């Protein structure tokens, strides 16, 4: 008996060595797996993991599948044509990205939008933030196999996409923010529709808690999984709800206010544990806070112009007539040859997933000399390398889904 078992061991050792399963220098037996771009959820990235049995030993993110070279393209176009370029990567919450770009441009030009335009921009940014968080929870549900969560997430998101459609004319790519203000005013029935939607969302959140957050299966899969400690989060430069779920209460809307945020009343939700459950919980709490911000903004909305008077002076008579009758801004000729003075400007905003930074270098010509922007998902990629090793392979979808990582935003 003993002799034959030793013989089997020797045969299997031979097989392992001849089949070259990837033996490393230390003699461990590691297998490299490629979790490739064809997978459900937000694909377009490849994760290469090295596993020893079932435990992940090393992880290397392979990004760049949606790299569309926007920084280089913007050097070839005038300033206005970069607005749709900046919208496309982060397709779920497009408004904070355009707000950031236009803020940097306005700092260069030295103008500030009128108060009503600031409130309108803020309101649209919060509507898209709710839609983005619902998308994130929907994708997490696909990863965990909770199909009802996917259907509810996308179904509830449609409500806010329709509201944005009423305000700006398109479902997800609005191009609503222009230098000096916004493009359209809100219609008469808009405040009532928004109030109906917010009341529906508040009732619906209670159902979400029942089926998703207080669900014992989801709690088992998300608690104590993917723990990110506070020191690591600060050292690695993580942003957004991922950072706030680890105990750091940093939010650009409070730390460095832009638009109308310093006049509105809201709180920043922070959790202490740093695991996947805390990240999901922080997102749900942020939806509640966004509902408060929208209500507050509607109450305090000032009246007045929606475009800066310097630009309004350059309207021709037909544009002025359209502006006064229907409150829509038709672009004057100055936008086609906008030449901001020489210099540099930096702006940052809080998008749905974290902090986005915009830096424009201008040399006095109608095209930017250098446009640099960093998105929150790009800064969160490093978590794949440092947080995933040590977990079992079956926990990878739960961690990936809870990070709310959107590859087109990271690759720009």
């Amino acid at each position, binding site marked *: 008996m003993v002799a034959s078992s030793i013989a089997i061991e020797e045969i299997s050792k031979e097989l392992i060595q001849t089949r070259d399963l990837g033996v490393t220098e230390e003699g461990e037996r590691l297998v490299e797996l490629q979790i490739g771009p064809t997978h459900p959820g937000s694909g377009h990235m490849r994760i290469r993991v090295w596993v020893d049995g079932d435990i992940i030993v090393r992880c290397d993110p392979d*990004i*760049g599948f949606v*790299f569309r*070279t926007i*920084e*280089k*393209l913007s050097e*070839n176009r005038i300033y206005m044509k970069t607005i749709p370029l900046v919208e496309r990567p982060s397709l779920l919450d497009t408004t904070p990205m355009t707000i950031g770009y236009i803020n*940097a441009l306005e*700092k260069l030009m*030295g103008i500030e939008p009128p*108060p009503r335009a600031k409130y309108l921009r803020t309101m649209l940014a919060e509507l898209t933030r709710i839609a983005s968080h619902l998308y994130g929870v929907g994708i997490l549900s696909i990863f965990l196999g909770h199909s009802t969560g996917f259907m509810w997430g996308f179904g509830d998101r449609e409500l806010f996409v329709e509201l944005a459609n009423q305000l700006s004319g398109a479902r997800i790519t609005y191009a609503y923010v222009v230098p000096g203000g916004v493009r359209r005013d809100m219609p008469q029935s808009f405040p009532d529709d928004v109030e109906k939607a917010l009341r529906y969302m508040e009732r619906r959140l209670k159902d979400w808690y029942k089926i998703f957050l207080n669900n014992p299966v989801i709690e088992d899969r998300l608690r104590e999984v993917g723990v990110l400690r506070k020191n690591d989060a*600060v*050292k*690695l*430069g993580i942003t957004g709800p991922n*950072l706030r779920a680890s105990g*750091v209460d*940093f939010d650009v809307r409070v*730390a*460095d206010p832009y638009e109308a945020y310093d*006049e509105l009343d809201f709180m920043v939700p922070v959790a202490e544990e740093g695991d996947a459950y805390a990240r999901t919980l922080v997102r749900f709490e942020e939806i509640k806070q966004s509902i408060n911000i929208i209500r507050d903004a509607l109450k305090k909305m*000032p009246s007045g112009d929606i475009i800066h008077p310097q630009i309004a002076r350059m309207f021709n008579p037909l544009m002025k007539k359209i502006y006064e009758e229907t409150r829509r801004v038709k672009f004057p000729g100055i936008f086609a040859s906008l030449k901001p003075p020489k210099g*540099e*400007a*930096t*702006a*940052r905003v809080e998008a749905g997933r974290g*902090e986005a*930074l915009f*830096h424009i*270098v201008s040399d006095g010509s109608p095209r930017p*000399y*250098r446009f*640099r922007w*960093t998105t929150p998902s*790009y*800064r969160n*990629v*490093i978590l794949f390398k440092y947080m995933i090793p040590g977990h079992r392979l079956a926990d990878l979808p739960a961690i990936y889904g809870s990070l709310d990582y959107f590859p087109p935003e990271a*690759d720009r």
Partner: protein
Amino acid sequence: MASQQPQASQQRLALGKALEELATRLSEHLKGVATKVEADKRSMVINIEVDRSRILEAAKILSSLGFDHVKSLTGVDYPDKGVIELMVHIGSYSRGLRRIMAILRSKLDRKDPRAPTLTQIWPSSELQEREAWEMFGIVFEGHPDLRRLLLPEEFEGLWPGRKDFEIPTRKAGEVEEPWK
């Protein structure tokens, strides 16, 4: 609304003064290391310009003062001056310094751009240095894993971020007719 406007502009004046004070105190800490420290009140940033050999020293001093992560690391190409400027946006999560950013700048020689790596001081710059390498050709000495991040293999040796890598442009009124 009208009552809030003077309040807002007063706040902005106060912030501007605080920023200038901070810039003077930073220039004292960085005496002998930085060639220029100035505040930009519009964007709420402090520009710090250092020579290539002093990058690591300045980074250590800033890190001990409370700046704990890198927000963006990239290069700006100036072919007519023959330099590539390394531009690092540094921020802080600590309470006193959240509001501002510091930009660390350094001019590198365009024919052979080399810079010391900042990953020992700020681990958040690891992937951003890889991107700066593949776009501009800046070699970061001491980086643990310098390889391509976003582009496929056929771009090895071409530095797409530089100004001499041109992409097609269409002038106004010009129409492409590929079927002709």
